[in-house]
């Protein structure tokens, strides 16, 4: 039997994940019989849609942190920006079905607006909203990244100023006068592209789109790690100065990766909003961005499937323990993070390897003892 390489194994993993989320789950939801064990209910599909969004978010952070060594504590900001951009379109599509029966979104009526603010007008078109989902996080990341990388802010400092940026944005979006709904954010969506948003068929379509997008991201990263670009990326992580002295502009590389990761996060944000039905500044809280880092760490950083497994596992655990042990779930979660950092530096994906090597060490030690015994 020929030994399969690391990269081939990842590819097989990606294909299996793709088959499960893109084909199996929507099919089982649509055609499965309700009594069957494998049936996926609408509720479960919706929940898994949320998990897949989180997985996509973790994948985007992994591109930054895992492969380039840039710990960004503001990934939640880009996620929320994407979500807000699509949310604005969905808010306008509520039209006169809102509580105040007005063309304007409810919160604007409540705040006494007479007409739509100018920056809201183009969001009436779905195309523009999608364009903004890509553009807004990209521009914010571009400007911020340009400033940060040009000043050669890195490591811990980069982490802290991205956190400050997120915090500032969070404060800003909490304000009513910022025209984005204050602390209530956007909710009560009715339709997306003309179809009812909470219809099972719409939700299944959204799930499938999310699943396809996630698979594409995984294939993209698999491909990227095999290119020269990916190698430079990892070289920057391991020793940035050496790369710079070899004549590469590390600033440009880092900026490009930062912007791509921000856009990826923005897209999952936009997929998240119609499935969950709400977007508010809570998503921008610095603690939310820290959680994303933890998903990646738990799953295994710098691996292709690690972030997906980490995001799904932690969020599943979160749902499970908030339901069964509401008083203790924060403690369980906190203890998990401490445990993973201290004892599982390679995360869940790295666990088999870690166990194998400790087993080897144990056998080594055992044999040595035996030899010593027999010698005596």
């Amino acid at each position, binding site marked *: 039997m020929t030994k399969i390489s690391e990269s081939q194994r990842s590819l097989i993993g990606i294909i299996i994940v793709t088959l499960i989320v893109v084909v199996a789950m929507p099919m089982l939801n649509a055609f499965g019989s309700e009594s069957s064990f494998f049936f996926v209910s609408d509720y479960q599909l919706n929940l898994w849609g949320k998990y897949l969004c989180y997985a996509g978010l973790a994948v985007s952070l992994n591109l930054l942190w895992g492969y380039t060594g840039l*710990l960004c504590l503001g990934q939640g900001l880009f996620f929320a920006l994407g979500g807000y951009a699509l949310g604005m379109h969905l808010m306008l599509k509520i039209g006169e079905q809102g509580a105040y029966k007005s063309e304007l979104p409810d919160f604007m009526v409540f705040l006494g607006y007479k007409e739509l603010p100018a920056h809201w007008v183009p969001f009436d078109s779905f195309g523009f909203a999608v364009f903004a989902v890509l553009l807004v996080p990209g521009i914010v990341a571009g400007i*911020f990244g340009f*400033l*940060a990388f*040009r*000043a*050669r*802010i890195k*490591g*811990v*400092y980069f*982490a*802290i*100023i991205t*956190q*400050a*940026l997120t*915090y*500032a944005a969070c*404060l*800003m979006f*909490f*304000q009513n006068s910022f025209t984005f709904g204050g602390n209530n954010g956007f909710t009560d969506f009715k339709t997306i592209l003309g179809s009812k948003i909470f219809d099972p068929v719409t939700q299944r379509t959204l799930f499938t789109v999310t699943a396809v997008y996630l698979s594409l991201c995984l294939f993209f990263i698999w491909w990227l790690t095999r290119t020269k670009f990916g190698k430079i990326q990892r070289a920057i992580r391991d*020793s*940035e*100065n050496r790369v710079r002295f070899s004549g590469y502009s590390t600033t440009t590389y880092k900026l490009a990766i930062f912007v791509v990761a921000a856009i990826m996060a923005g897209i999952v944000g936009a997929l998240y909003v119609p499935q969950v039905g709400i977007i508010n500044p809570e998503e921008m809280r*610095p*603690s939310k961005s*820290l959680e994303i*880092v*933890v998903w990646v*760490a738990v799953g295994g950083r710098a691996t292709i499937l690690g972030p997906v497994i980490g995001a799904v596992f932690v969020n599943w655990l979160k749902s499970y323990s908030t339901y069964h042990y509401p*008083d*203790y779930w*924060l*403690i369980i*979660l*906190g*203890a*998990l*993070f*401490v445990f*993973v*950092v*201290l004892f599982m*530096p390679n995360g869940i994906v790295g666990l088999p390897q870690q166990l194998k090597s400790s087993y080897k060490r144990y056998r080594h030690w055992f044999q040595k003892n035996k030899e010593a015994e027999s010698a005596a």
Partner: protein
Amino acid sequence: MKSRVTITLITRVFLLVLFGLASDLRADEAQARQILVEAILSSGKEQTALVESLSSTAAPIVPDYLEFWKRGKIYLYQTDPDVDPIPVLEHEAETEGEASTYSRIVDGEIIVDEAGNPLVLDPEKMEMARPGRKTRRVFTMTVDLLALSTPDVSDRADAALKLGLKQDKDILPKLRELSSKETEPLVIEALEEGIAVSMLAHGSKEEQMESIQVLKDRNSIAGLDALKNLRHDINDGYAPYPLTEEEKAELDESIASIESYISVTDFVGTCFRGLSLGAVLLIVALGLAITFGLMGVINMAHGEMIAIGAYAAYISQQIFYTVFSQSTFALETYFLFAIPFSFIVAALCGLVLERTVIQFLYKRPLESLLATWGVSLILQQGFRLVFGAANRQVRSPSWLLGNVEIFDITFGFNRIFVIGFAILIVVGTWLLMSRTPFGLSIRAVMQDPQMAAAMGIRINRVRMMTFAFGSGLAGLAGVFLSQIGSVGSNLGQSYIVDSFMVVVAGGVGNIVGTVISALGIGVTDQALQPLLGPVMGRICVLIAIILFLQWKPGGLFPSKSRNLD
């Protein structure tokens, strides 16, 4: 009628004095009640004069009764057509449909029947007492003048100034009269200021010019509006006397002088508030400057160490309350005990945290961020389980409340205290770091652990103690924060971003940098707040720090090193 009232008054006063029960206040009140009764029963000029005379009684009940009178709550109760009616005050029943009760104005007692139950009066025998038209006009002035005779010095000074600002022609002579009698220098000053403002409108030309000078000399903020009004009147041609160009220039100069005085006091006030905010930030960030700045541990649980200190302050308050049974002594002294107690508790928690988690992560600083964040989640939930989800109140000792006003700038005692506290902590830390063997070994271990170990320093122990010290400083911050807000499980979270920004902007590993950046951020924040509002001010400060790092990526005082990466 009048003679009888006087006789009752005399007997009353006589009796009070006789039995030694006469406090000034009660005598004043009795006198005021008598005058009120007389005024209600009389009419015309006599009534007006009586109401005016109330202003010299110094009884605090007068404003209320005048208000009742004006609103028609006072009735005349005619028991017998031959006898004078009795003035009574109506107290409406709290529940609807029940009859009102009445009290006699002469002594404030509720009218009761023989059994002691409130008597329901026959509406037929009652008539609403209405003040005369001219009397009504003197009500406000009477109340104002009454305030001039309150025993409290600062209240009296406030009242004097307020009356002067009304620029009322009738009050001016009264103010003058009072100023000749007044003995308290504070009140005399206020009266003079009030008289000057009043004279701007009603004095002769000489008096007017004198007032302009007086207001300028006193830097009277209160008089500024009156001066500006005069200036407008002159421009519009309404001024009582035409002024020469020179005199106009004098007026302008006076206005400009007061305005510049205001901008100076505003500036000093902003600086002071900024310094005190900076001191809070400094206390909060100093512990982090040690654990993060010196040791390189990204301690996300720093905020929880602060919360531990705050909860320790709460516990020490509860212990003092239990032991000294809620006496004032407990309230005044627990705080002095809470300071060392919180330091020790937080330092011990830091010690445990270092031994169990952080000691394994010195080579992986970014991962210390994740582990300590996990610890912070555990601690937050732990606080909620132990102390409950609701916030706990910690009461401030009275010597931290009050404030003192110097040159129109208010200095709160708690703000002064926090500045002093910050200076003490910084000096203490600096002495520890630079003047003790322990400080020397800390610096050695932080600069080069391997070399320090080779020199025989027990680096594990030094790191452990350093982390405990940094955590203890966070605990001290907690004691102070418990004084400016309530104590909750999220207390630390609201300061964590700020404290990291302070340390980063100051230059990691440099305590002087931390001090300067904390004060700088505090002052900038306070200077921006009046212009942009609290939230936008804060956002601008955060953005300013990000831009500042553009210019100085290593912070104010970057640590110098030949190492790459």
